[in-house]
């Protein structure tokens, strides 16, 4: 290792329009050496990657894809702050790598024109040259490089082509001079900027020319507030400068786009050649996909395909059956090889039942993410947003909220992260706050068990529709309707504001790259497994422990004595009638012992303590404590119900499915059944609406950088769940004429 290697890596900022293959290029350049995080105070993701070439280490700072460097919010300010080295958390980049889409140079050069003004050594990656060729566009790379005064390297990031050339160019960046870049602005504008800069200097304030230009251009006043340069009367000076510019025919802010696009046209003259080609396949596909009739039909069919595949017995069902069988086998293996006692109970009832009950949903999650990844990668998601915008605008949102909400049907965590596609802060917040209401896959087990056990099977329309499927769909609808109402209310109250614009690029269609899709599915699947292995594992163990301990056998001493006596009698008995009577007594004793021990357990005590609260929902203390235990992660409910309704009943635990155990459950010391249709509906609605997911709340905290929003989400969703469960219980009890139990 040479001494040079020990020096700090060269910091290079990566910038470019969305849909230019920027992420693919970032991944190709840095390989696996990446780390992500958040910038303090804003919601922008911080992505770093490093690679080595010729004894040099290069650190890439990935900036969010954007069309312009004109900040109007703290999030947009980050890119400018990073590039100007104004951020304490980040080193000032020594160079900039700008990614351009070769097929779309006219718009892509806009941000390049802004970057060149920063006068940092710059390298251009001319990406997607193959896609450009299909559109009949050829670029004279040599001439473009000459005009821009910076190296231009053609790449095909998805094929890995040009990546090595880019690495070499970056290794030499230190010796490259900053670009000579004449300002594209008209003389009048430059004079005003120089005048303002002079004013600042006389006030002992130093500001780079770029910031002063921005200050003059930003009529929203955001930058003035943010930078607070030059004191009170400086605002007056800016206003006067703007007025003079308007009179001279260079009104701000329009002058910027006009000057820059003028520069772009000059630069590209003779550089880009467009051969007339028949409309590319992408355009012809687009005609169909966005057609008012065919596009809508396709969209509906696509959504049906996605959801039927996810819930079909044939696609997801098969691997789910394997996983289930695997865990059953494991449970039996452990159960029959270990001596009875706390350790066996922990492994079988706690760990295997808890983690297995969750991992079973892995295939469904992977299938849903597979579809989402394909739709995103091929460019359809922007069309989905376009098709859905009108519907979403009714509740004050835009079509851009569609993608995050669709992802939330798999899991709200990636859904919340996907809200990054929404630039408007209020819109983004509303979408984030309603994302957990979409029925994620963790709710499926609750629905499946409750429906199978308590919804009477009916068929309509010759078996095409049945009451089970209808109830299942109804639960999804409960979440969607609640989300619509909540979004509407939020947009009318605490997150009120003008309807944000909907200006969305519809990128060309392309074949999804299977490696990108595969990588995405593996990443999401793995994070789900990790969650099951850590959070769910820990909660299963905790819930088991809370339900097992203090395990004070003294309180059931008389029953235990009688149990031993009955067992001895049973061994000696020969009379068939007597055997039957003894076996019945044995079962009753077992039941009483396990019930008494659970009631005395810590979980049981907590359940009884909250019983008055859950009684109006038709629940007893056991349902209450199962729900309580599910607040860290709702998947825990299945394991918990299993633990609660079998604790101590170990011999029969494996032979009786949970569904039957629940059907047999009665209110304490009575023979009134605990569950019935209204109670089952009440439980399902509660789980559909409640924020029982610590991980989602943590992600909302991370994305909003504030405790306020996760707390708000938790409070409003829990309230909604309680009210919803109460209402459905009373309504269902009234309609089915079920007596409301008040034991």
């Amino acid at each position, binding site marked *: 290792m040479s001494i040079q290697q020990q020096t700090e890596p060269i910091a290079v900022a990566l910038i470019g329009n969305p849909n230019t293959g920027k992420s693919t290029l970032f991944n190709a350049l840095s390989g696996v050496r990446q780390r992500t995080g958040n910038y303090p105070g804003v919601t922008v993701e911080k992505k770093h990657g490093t690679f080595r070439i010729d004894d040099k280490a290069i650190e890439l700072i990935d900036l969010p894809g954007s069309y312009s460097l004109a900040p109007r919010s703290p999030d947009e300010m980050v890119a400018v702050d990073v590039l100007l080295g104004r951020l304490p958390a980040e080193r000032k980049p020594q160079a900039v790598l700008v990614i351009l889409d070769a097929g779309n140079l006219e718009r892509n050069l806009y941000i390049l024109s802004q970057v060149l003004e920063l006068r940092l050594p710059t390298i251009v990656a001319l990406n997607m040259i193959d896609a450009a060729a299909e559109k009949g566009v050829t670029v004279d790379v040599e001439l473009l490089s000459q005009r821009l005064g910076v190296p231009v390297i053609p790449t095909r990031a998805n094929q890995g082509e040009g990546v090595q050339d880019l690495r070499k160019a970056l290794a030499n960046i230190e010796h490259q001079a900053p670009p000579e870049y004449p300002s594209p602005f008209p003389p009048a504008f430059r004079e005003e900027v120089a005048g303002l800069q002079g004013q600042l200097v006389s006030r002992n304030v130093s500001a780079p020319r770029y910031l002063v230009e921005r200050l003059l251009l930003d009529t929203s006043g955001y930058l003035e507030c943010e930078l607070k340069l030059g004191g009170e009367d400086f605002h007056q000076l800016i206003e006067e400068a703007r007025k003079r510019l308007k009179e001279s025919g260079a009104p701000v802010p329009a002058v910027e786009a006009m000057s820059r696009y003028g520069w772009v046209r000059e630069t590209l003259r003779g550089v880009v050649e467009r051969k007339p080609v028949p409309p590319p396949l992408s355009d012809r596909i687009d005609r169909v996909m966005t057609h008012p009739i065919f596009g809508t039909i396709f969209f509906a069919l696509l959504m049906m395909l996605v959801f039927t595949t996810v819930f079909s017995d044939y696609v997801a069902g098969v691997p789910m059956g394997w996983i289930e069988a695997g865990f059953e086998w494991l449970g039996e293996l452990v159960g029959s090889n270990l001596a009875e006692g706390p350790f066996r109970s922990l492994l079988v009832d706690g760990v295997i039942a808890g983690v297995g009950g969750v991992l079973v949903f892995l295939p469904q999650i992977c299938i849903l993410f597979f579809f989402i990844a394909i739709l995103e990668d091929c460019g359809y998601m922007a069309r989905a947003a*376009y098709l859905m915008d009108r519907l979403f605008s009714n509740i004050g949102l835009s079509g851009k909220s569609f993608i995050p909400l669709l992802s939330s049907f798999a899991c709200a965590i990636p859904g919340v992260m996907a809200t990054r596609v929404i630039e408007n802060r209020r819109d983004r917040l509303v979408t984030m706050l309603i994302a957990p209401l979409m029925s994620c896959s963790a709710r499926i087990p609750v629905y499946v068990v409750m429906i199978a056990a308590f919804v009477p099977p009916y068929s309509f329309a010759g078996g095409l529709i049945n009451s089970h499927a209808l109830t299942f769909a109804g639960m999804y609808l409960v979440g969607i309707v609640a989300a619509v109402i909540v979004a509407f209310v939020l947009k009318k109250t605490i997150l009120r504001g003008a309807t944000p614009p909907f*200006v969305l690029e519809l990128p060309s269609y392309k074949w999804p790259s299977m490696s990108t899709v595969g990588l995405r599915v593996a990443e999401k699947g793995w994070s789900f497994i990790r969650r099951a292995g850590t959070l769910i594992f820990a909660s299963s163990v905790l819930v088991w422990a809370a339900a097992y301990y203090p395990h004070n056998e003294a309180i059931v001493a008389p029953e235990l004595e009688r149990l031993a006596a009955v067992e001895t009698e049973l061994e000696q008995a020969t009379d068939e009638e007597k055997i039957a009577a003894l076996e019945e007594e044995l079962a009753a004793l077992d039941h009483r012992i396990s019930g008494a021990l659970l009631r005395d357990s810590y979980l049981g005590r907590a359940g009884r303590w909250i019983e008055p609260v859950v009684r109006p929902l038709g629940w007893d203390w056991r349902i209450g404590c199962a729900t309580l235990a599910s607040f860290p992660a709702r998947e825990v409910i299945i394991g918990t119900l299993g633990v609660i309704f079998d604790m101590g009943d170990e011999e029969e635990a494996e032979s009786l499915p949970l569904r039957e155990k629940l059907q047999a459950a009665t209110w304490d010391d009575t023979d009134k059944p605990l569950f019935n249709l209204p109670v089952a509906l009440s439980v399902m609605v509660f789980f559909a609406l409640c924020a029982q997911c610590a991980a989602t709340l943590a992600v909302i905290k991370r994305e909003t950088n504030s405790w306020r929003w996760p707390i708000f989400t938790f409070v409003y969703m829990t309230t909604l769940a309680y009210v919803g469960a109460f209402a459905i219980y009373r309504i269902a009890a009234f309609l089915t004429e079920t007596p409301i139990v008040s034991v």
Partner: protein
Amino acid sequence: MKTLSGFKVGDRVTVSSIEGDDDISVRLLEMGLVPGVELEVVGYAPLGDPIEIELIGYRLSLRKSEASRVLVTDKFS
């Protein structure tokens, strides 16, 4: 002066200016809707809104409310 919101699919027009100087107009300008640029109306979403247009080699969708700030001249008039 006509605005972009009232054209049929297939119509080609030239941008003459953008109304206003707020965020929305800056955004439209940045996306390439600058005076002199030609664009084509490619389609309307099923419920009549947003609009899909093609300009400087790419496709953009925007709501009618935004399109009504884009003042245009009809190419064939």
